[in-house]
Each structure stands twice: as C-alpha cells, then as structure tokens.
C-alpha cells in the first residue's frame, strides 16, 4: 500500500504528517509532537471510520494540494477552507471521494490556522517511537511535505462502521482567545504586579508562533528577582517566560526541559483553540478552575 498513495502538488507554507504524537518519552528529550488541534485531527479520522491514531496532514494557513495515486476518500477538518477535487468544489467536514489521478486542493484557511486532511486508511510513513508525527523541534518523523514528494496510504479499514459520520459541527474561533491558566509551578519568580499583568493585560499572538510555541506580544512580566532557573521538565501548555518577559505557551513540539520559569500552565483542552489563533489575535489569560 505504501507505494502510490499521495503525491504533493502544492506543499503550502508548512504541511506535516501528524497523529496523536509520542507521549511518554520526554525523559529522553523527545517532544510529544502530534496534531496541534487534536480534536480536529480526531474528527477527520472519525468521519472516515479511521482509528483516531491514524496519521493526517496538518496544514498551516495556506493549505496544500495532493494528487491521489489511487482512489481514496478524504475528510478535511480544523480551519475551514475551500476544498476542491480537480477544481470542483467539494465538502469541508464530510467524506469526499477522490478518484485516482485527481487533485484534492485544500485552500487557504478562511478562519483559523491549521486544517487537517484525513484519508481512508490514514497517511502511512515509518513510525518513530510509535508515532508518525513530524516533530519540528527535534526533526523526528517524516519531513514536511514538499512538491513532488510521495506519501503512502494505509489499508482502508476492513469494517467501516455503518453511518459513521459525525456531524462536523464547527464553532467560529473567538475574536479573542481566552486562555485558562493554572498558576505555577514558578509563579513566585514574578512580582504580584507581574502576575497582575499576566491576568489583566491583553496580549496578541505573534507571527513568530509555530508548532513549538504560541508566542505573545504584549507587556513583559516583572520578575521578583534575578537568578537562573536550573533546567527542569516542561509540561505541554507551559507558559514559559524568557528573560525579556513575554510569555510563550508551549505547544506539541515544545522542548522537554528548559531553564526559564513557568508562570502557569494552560490545560491541554484549551490548546486546540490556541493552535487555531492566527497572528494578531488578542489573547487574555483567566485563572482556571481546579
């Protein structure tokens, strides 16, 4: 099945293979990686009757186009975008038949950042530590798509559940990203004024954001003192504050250890929507309930 799955006709600015990532190896310096909008990735697979662990393609702002080298069924979720098969409009958020030789074109996101393309049987690639995810921090997993490159497709599920289609409900992304944050473990590295800044001042998503972190523009957090933090483990969603004082929210490809204090942690369930916030989106932090 590997030969002759998909050929990249247009790679877009950044399109990677993603699945649910390789959690459990942080102690070896291996980021978890995986789809940034895990909910959209899972939905795309469910629409096709794939297991949620099947690999999808994750686009960035400009979409991508792939030629099917054999007939397949695809589903596009995540950031809404125009979907075309050989130029003809096709459905977003529903199974779409792609005949052999046809090009599935996923256009630029009309809202959000990242669209997910699932295929019958999933994208195939050599798994690394049990995952096919592209990890851009450490270079594990398949390379980002490039024009002319060929990706394999897995065998379609033998028993597709009847009427397996979810309704692909989609809520427009909020005009302002409201992120719950659990303070700590290093909030005491900041003055009370610094913490007030975090919880009351507005930020904006920086264009320097990527799969490693959502970088923010806005007021710096005031530190309670000088000093360097000894390297320590960094969780997903960590709000790390480098010396210049502007918070970075760690996403799936984040480093596993780091030496800047983590003022708080954004719970994982809030990160899907964070990954869909384009540069310029206003951001506010709010204390998370327990």
């Amino acid at each position, binding site marked *: 099945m590997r030969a002759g799955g998909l050929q990249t006709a247009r790679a877009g600015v950044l399109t990677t293979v993603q699945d649910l990532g390789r959690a459990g190896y942080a*102690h070896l310096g291996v980021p978890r990686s995986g789809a940034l909008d895990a909910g959209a990735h899972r939905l795309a697979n469910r629409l096709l009757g794939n297991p949620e662990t099947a690999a999808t393609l994750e686009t960035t702002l400009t979409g991508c186009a792939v030629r099917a080298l054999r007939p397949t069924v695809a589903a596009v979720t995540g950031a809404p975008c125009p979907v075309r098969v050989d130029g003809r409009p096709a459905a977003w958020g529903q199974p779409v038949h792609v005949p052999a030789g046809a090009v599935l074109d996923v256009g630029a996101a009309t809202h959000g950042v990242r669209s997910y393309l699932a295929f019958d049987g999933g994208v195939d690639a050599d798994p690394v530590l049990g995952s096919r995810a592209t990890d851009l921090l450490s270079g594990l997993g398949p390379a980002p798509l490039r024009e002319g490159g060929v990706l394999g497709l897995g065998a379609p599920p033998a028993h597709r559940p009847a009427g397996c289609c979810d309704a692909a409900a989609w809520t427009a992304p909020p005009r302002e990203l409201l992120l719950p944050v659990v303070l700590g473990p290093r909030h005491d590295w900041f003055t009370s004024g610094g913490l007030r800044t975090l919880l009351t001042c507005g930020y904006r998503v920086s264009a320097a954001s990527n799969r490693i972190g959502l970088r923010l523009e806005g007021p710096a957090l005031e530190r309670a003192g000088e000093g360097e933090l000894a390297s320590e483990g960094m969780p997903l969603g960590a709000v790390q504050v480098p010396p210049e004082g502007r918070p970075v929210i760690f996403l799936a490809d984040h480093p596993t250890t780091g030496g800047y204090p983590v003022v708080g942690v954004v719970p994982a369930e809030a990160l899907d929507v964070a990954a869909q916030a384009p540069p310029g989106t206003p951001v506010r932090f709010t204390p998370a309930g327990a």
Partner: protein
Amino acid sequence: MAGERGASPEGRAGRGQARAAVLPVGRDGLLVELGTAEETEALHAELLRRRALGTLPPVAEIVPGARTVLLDGFPSADAARALAAELPGWNVPPLTGSAAGALEIPVRYDGPDLADVAALWGVAEDEVPRIHAAATFRVAFCGFAPGFGYLTGLDERYHVPRRADPRTRVPAGAVGLAGPYTGVYPRSSPGGWQLIGTAPETVLWDADRTPAALLTPGTRVRFVPLESDEAQPGPRRAGPGPAPGRRP
C-alpha cells in the same frame, strides 16, 4: 531567590527522607523540587522503582531535571494531590556511587576548546583527558535533543562556563562541558558548550534501536581516552562492527 520562592527544602526532614517541596503543575501534574542533584537523582530512581513495582499512581511522564522531577499526566487532579501529600514522607535510599556496570564511551580528546578548558582548570592540556576520564558520570537528565544527556560527576573545581559565542554548528559526537555537565551531541546542531573531544564510535540516538537513546536518566558513564592512532574509521578492536556503546 530560593528563600523567597518558598520552595527551599532546607531542614524539612531528616536524612533519608525526601526533603522535597511538591509544587502543582497544571491540573494533573507535580514538580518535586529537591535540595541537591544527588537527592534529585535518588528520588528519580525511587520513582522508577515504585513505578516498576506498580505502587506509583499511573503517570504519563517522569522527567528529571537538575534539581527537580516533573510528574506529568496523572489520571486525575485527585491522584496528583494524593501523591503530593504522600511523597514528602517517603524514605528515599541514597544513591550508591558504584562505577560497576558503567557504560564506556571512547573519546578522542581533540576538541577545539581543549586549550581553553585546560586554562580554566589551570592544568596542562594533556591533563584534561586524564582528569575527565577518571570521573564516573551519571545521566542526571535529558533534553535539548533526543538522546542528549546531561551528565554529572565532574568535581566542582572543573565546572566551566558555556562559551560566550555559541557555535552555529557542533558536529555529531562532540563531547562538551558546560557548568556541572558533560554532554555528547547526538547529532550536528548549534551549541555553546566547551568542546573537549569527539566520541567517534558511539551512536547516542537511533530511532530504530530499542532503547533509541543510549543515555537515559540514571545511566552511569565513563569516558575512555582513544589513542589518536586508534581513531581511524573502523572497529576499534577485533569484533563485530562498531557497537553503539560498550559495557565491560
């Protein structure tokens, strides 16, 4: 800084007990902070022991740091809280310092910063390999890149600062020093460590190997000087090809 962070472990408990401050991390994680690298390594070993025995609540990641162990991804906030309450009372056996069974990494001591390191140490250049290879190291934690271990074991008087001007490219296998740590670059990358040598025979990371990382937290390591005429390509001694690392 330590005093005002409220996390100082001084005088919390007697010897043998985990003098640990436990800080919540998000809803389902904990960061355990200890007073010294030795206590951190001992607690990490104890956590792995309890996990192997099945007496630790399930947790997705156990990530040691320099003075901390991150426990991330408990099944519930309650499970994290319960362990946070219990852990400071643990009796944690101290580490034994035995070098028996240490992994040996052959090193050609020819790094571009050898002279700088010798000057910082106040010794002749040819003393650096002798001093470095005499120590027994332990992987305190990993990070920076898959398979990159931060190795402790060098006496404090041999700790050196990072280079003021980091290199944009450090070759794979380079052996470097920074602060209390020795590290071996698993692959070519930028880096600011003082490079004292090269480990030409050792594959630090191989995703197709189990385990993929040669150096995992807790692994004991010794560096073995290679003679310059032994550093030619090919197996160092008769045997089936270059091994990823050798145990005596």
